[in-house]
């Protein structure tokens, strides 16, 4: 206990287990409090160290798995020790060696046949397999309605998720990349961040961007996966999981599209971007919307956004009736578009977003 009298940095406190126990479990409480209050400098240090501990909690280790893991480890050890033994076998049982070798060769042959069959029959990589590879806590959203649904991600990107489609994404993007998983169809508008590329995993294809807009169609029951680009540059590659040896990748520019043939595991450029498709009227709609505005009434801009993103925007129509904007919102995710509009209208305008409900709060424009 006496060594604490020498403490003069927060580090000293944080590395002291008894201090940690006081903060976390209240151990020896009166004694610590009394000691802390002896002088103000010390009290200040203690308070900072306390805040630090409160701000840096880590998960509590799951102790209950230890016994199973220990058993498992002993089993592995035993197995390895057995493997090591045959090196000491005497030459008298060479016959066994040869038969063992023969069995291994037959085994390899059978394995090869299985491998080949698996290769030709099931090259497909599914959404659920991809999800099971991660284990980060993902939020999954499924669109069971007959209209596209808007999802905004923690980095300010927005996704229009089409009917019969699913998107899995983390609550916030940790690490060096932003990764999401798509089954079905989605239109993505990604907030720019070159330091942290955005990756969409959809069946066998990985689409990588740093900030742009594009559409992916990857339904599990369709033979092809399609990626089409509206703005920016997009890199599309086959997932390493299925094409380890010869990974294929293509870079796409605006208005280009690519089709991945799932059986052949190869890419095929799409000749022309499909325009309005009669059989699926909702498809490729948002790409047709022109977000270039020149002296346009703000109410009309809101109406266009409402239609493109299937939103409901509430705004003080009377206060904004004389507001016109000239701006290009071609290349931003929805939250960014709204931010630009609000900033253009003036200081006292902001928006609130709750799912597909947007509320514009404003006292008029300047």
């Amino acid at each position: 206990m006496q060594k604490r009298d020498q403490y003069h940095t927060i580090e000293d406190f944080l590395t002291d287990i008894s201090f940690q126990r006081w903060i976390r479990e209240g151990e020896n409480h009166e004694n610590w409090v009394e000691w802390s209050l002896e002088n103000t400098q010390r009290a200040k240090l203690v308070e900072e160290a306390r805040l630090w501990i409160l701000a840096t909690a880590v998960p509590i280790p799951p102790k209950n798995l230890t016994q199973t893991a220990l058993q498992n480890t002993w089993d592995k050890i035993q197995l390895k020790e057995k493997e090591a033994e045959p090196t000491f076998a005497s030459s008298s049982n060479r016959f066994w060696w040869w038969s063992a070798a023969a069995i291994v060769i037959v085994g390899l042959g059978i394995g090869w046949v299985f491998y080949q069959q698996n290769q030709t029959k099931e090259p497909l990589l599914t959404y659920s397999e991809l999800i099971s590879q991660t284990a980060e806590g993902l939020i999954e959203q499924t669109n069971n309605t007959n209209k596209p649904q808007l999802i905004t991600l923690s980095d300010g990107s927005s996704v229009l998720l089409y009917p019969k489609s699913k998107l899995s994404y983390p609550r916030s993007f940790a690490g060096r990349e932003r990764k999401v998983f798509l089954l079905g169809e989605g239109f993505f508008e990604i907030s720019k961040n070159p330091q942290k590329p955005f990756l969409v995993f959809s069946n066998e294809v990985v689409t990588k961007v740093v900030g742009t807009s594009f559409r992916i169609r990857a339904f599990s029951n369709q033979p092809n996966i399609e990626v089409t680009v509206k703005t920016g540059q997009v890199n599309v590659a086959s997932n390493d999981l299925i094409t380890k040896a010869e990974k294929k990748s293509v870079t796409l520019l605006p208005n280009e599209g690519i089709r991945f043939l799932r059986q052949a595991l190869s890419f095929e450029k799409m000749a022309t971007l499909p325009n309005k498709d009669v059989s699926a009227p909702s498809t490729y709609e948002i790409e047709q919307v022109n977000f270039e505005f020149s002296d346009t009434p703000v109410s009309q801009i809101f109406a266009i956004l409402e239609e493109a993103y299937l939103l409901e925007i509430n705004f003080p129509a009377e206060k904004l009736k004389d507001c016109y904007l000239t701006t290009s919102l071609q290349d931003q995710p929805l939250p960014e578009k709204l931010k630009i509009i609000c900033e253009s209208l003036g200081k006292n305008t902001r928006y609130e977003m709750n799912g597909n409900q947007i509320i514009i709060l404003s006292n008029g424009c300047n």
Partner: protein
Amino acid sequence: MSIAQIADEILWHRLKQGDKAAFSELFERYHASLTVYGNSLMSHPERVQDCVQDVFVDVWLYRHALSETVVVKAYLLSSVRKRIARLYQRDNVFRQTTSLESLEFLLDFSVEEQLIADEETATQVSQLNRLINNLPARQKEAIYLRFHQGLSIEQIGEMLDINYQSVTNLLHRAIQHLRKAWKGDLTLLALFIYRML
């Protein structure tokens, strides 16, 4: 004295001589926290579990070759880290498009909600928490190893293979940033982070 009170170093010594009980005790001591650490480096719990167990398998199989004088905890943490790094290198799954020359510490620190009673503390703590979580992964990992695992600065330096000067520069920038961003009294805190590496 029960086995639970015996120091790591003595258990290590016994383990080297083939004492299974000593091995099991060390396993029980460190398995859980090694698992948490492993999970902070790779988000694939089953693989992490394999790595942790394989570290112990090797400890037992090659016990004769182990150094007598090690800090057991630092040795185990470092072995888990190396093993996961090797897995990343070998495994295409995790190298999707960017190459991973080094591991990235993915853990986000959380707030001890149940220990906070008043609003002012809550605000300060959540602000500090956000700032710390926004530090580069390397610095967060150092913080974790220093205060949650109790490693020394030398051990951390060795483990992370840190170039002191470049980390100091990085930290300096981080502190400038923290100082601007945190409204609380940060002079002491800044001094402390600076000293830490």
